[in-house]
């Protein structure tokens, strides 16, 4: 295992020390492993809390700041944080207008956030609404699965609901934005290589040199199927076909097209992928209103990418363009 770390057991704590040192505008609660906006709680504003296993950086800690999250809880690598963390985050961002939990649909995340909400309800009067993201078309949402996974759309939910909260919208409306975004977004990912969980010390799966995994999630888990390595052009088609097949993205105000790197894939390749994605979208009559290319939701050092499309309207576009100031996403301020 080759990583820039100290003891594998300390990797999350060490990275949080680094975040605290690099971002004095944030406040890091090292005991609870929560990254807060420096000015949290913002009085009168809906507080946004997310979190999940570590190893997906910049998500979620890197999305804390004006116009996005108020707090993010960092679990162990690929392991949902515990209810205590989420409860501490919820209390810390409660500015009197309620708190939105943005939860990726994984059994662990959902249960831990649920327990946190129960804790908070028992202890304080804070109103908490949870929105669960589940945009991964690699997984069928059926009785026979834990439902679709929450992947790329989570980044967009955090930005757009964050902007809505920053505008002063009430909790119900901010939650509506989050639900709308999740409902209008779809994602699909692939991997060229596995990643190595620090505590495990070896790659989660082996992948021959001439094969790739299609339909992966973001926890280094194997995907739905293994196929022969293909050029970027074909990969774009493989990823977009199920996305476009699941929801009609044509017409209206177009889409936000998001090509996301899994952590070990350089930007050069993400732009090659984006060129192919844009070509498929053009051919399919899907208009790109905005785009995002980069490694925003990663799986440690996994090589690969995911593609997310989000159908937008004028309101969502305005929220997208609104100022955001976080370590991972910043514009307008």
């Amino acid at each position, binding site marked *: 295992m080759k990583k820039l770390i100290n003891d594998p057991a300390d990797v999350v704590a060490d990275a949080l020390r680094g975040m605290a040192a690099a971002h004095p505008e944030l406040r890091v609660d090292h005991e609870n492993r929560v990254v807060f906006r420096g000015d949290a709680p913002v009085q009168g504003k809906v507080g946004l809390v997310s979190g999940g*296993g570590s190893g997906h950086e910049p998500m979620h800690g890197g999305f804390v700041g004006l116009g996005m999250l108020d707090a993010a809880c960092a*679990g*162990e*690598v*690929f*392991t*949902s*944080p*515990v*209810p*205590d963390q989420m409860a501490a985050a919820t209390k810390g961002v409660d500015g009197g207008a309620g708190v939105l939990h943005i939860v990726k649909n*994984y*059994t*662990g995340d959902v*249960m*831990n956030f*649920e*327990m946190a909400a129960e804790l908070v309800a028992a202890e304080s009067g804070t109103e908490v609404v949870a929105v669960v993201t589940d945009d991964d078309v*690699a*997984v*069928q949402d059926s*009785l*026979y*699965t*834990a439902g679709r*996974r929450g992947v790329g759309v989570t980044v967009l939910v955090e930005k757009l609901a964050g902007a809505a909260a920053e505008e002063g919208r009430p909790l119900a409306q901010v939650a509506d934005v989050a639900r709308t975004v999740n409902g209008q977004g779809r994602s699909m990912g692939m991997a060229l290589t596995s990643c190595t*969980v620090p*505590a*495990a010390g070896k790659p*989660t*799966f082996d992948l021959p040199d001439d094969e790739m995994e299609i339909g992966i*999630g973001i*926890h*280094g*888990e*194997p995907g*739905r*199927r293994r196929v022969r390595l293909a050029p970027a052009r074909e990969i774009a088609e493989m990823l977009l076909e199920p996305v476009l097949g699941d929801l009609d993205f044509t017409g209206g105000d177009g889409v936000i097209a998001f090509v996301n790197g899994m952590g070990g894939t350089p930007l050069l390749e993400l732009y090659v992928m984006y060129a192919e994605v844009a070509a498929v979208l053009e051919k399919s009559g899907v208009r790109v209103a905005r785009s995002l290319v980069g490694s925003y939701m990663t799986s440690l050092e996994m090589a690969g990418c995911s593609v997310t499309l989000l159908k937008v309207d004028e309101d969502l576009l305005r929220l997208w363009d609104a100022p955001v100031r976080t370590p991972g996403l910043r514009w307008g301020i």
Partner: protein
Amino acid sequence: MADGLHTADLEAWIREFARVVAEHREELTALDSAIGDADHGTNMDRGMTAAVGALEAAPPADPAALLKQVGMTLVSKVGGASGPLYGTFFLRMAGALGPEPADAAAFARALRAGLEGVVARGKAEPGDKTMLDALVPACDALDEALASGKPLGAALEAAADAARQGRDATIPLVARKGRASYLGERSAGHQDPGATSTALLLDAAVSALAGSQS
């Protein structure tokens, strides 16, 4: 100790579970690598190490307090799916026990209460390829053995046997809950990590508790 399971017995069970989890940490993580995210061994080991640490820092006074402390520690130290599930399991067990030593029937009732907590929390059913596939047969076997008049020791052995069989029976299953369900058909052919740690929990019960009433 013909008068039932004391705090010290349950503590021995927890310590033994912590020990076997540590011993099997790599195996549990390897199983989770195949159909999950390669952390089940690390999760359980972190949680049980913390649980034992908490027992030493603040030794609980009675069986219910002990299992409650273990449950709380797991909930606040593990995370993932196994934290809430095993945490709820021990919390519900604690809720079903009183402060007094538990006899075999009380222990079996508590175990089933724990099982029901796991179902309530995780909404899985037997056959979904989860820890339930070890826990349900274990509870059933325990009840049956006790009902047929077996002593706790033999009954726990029957339960552990059933748990191991349930664990093995997860191999051909296609997962319908938890992370492994994302793999669809590809989840078949692999043993479920959570069912494996649950089988260890029953093994630990045999080692730590079977002698208590025999």
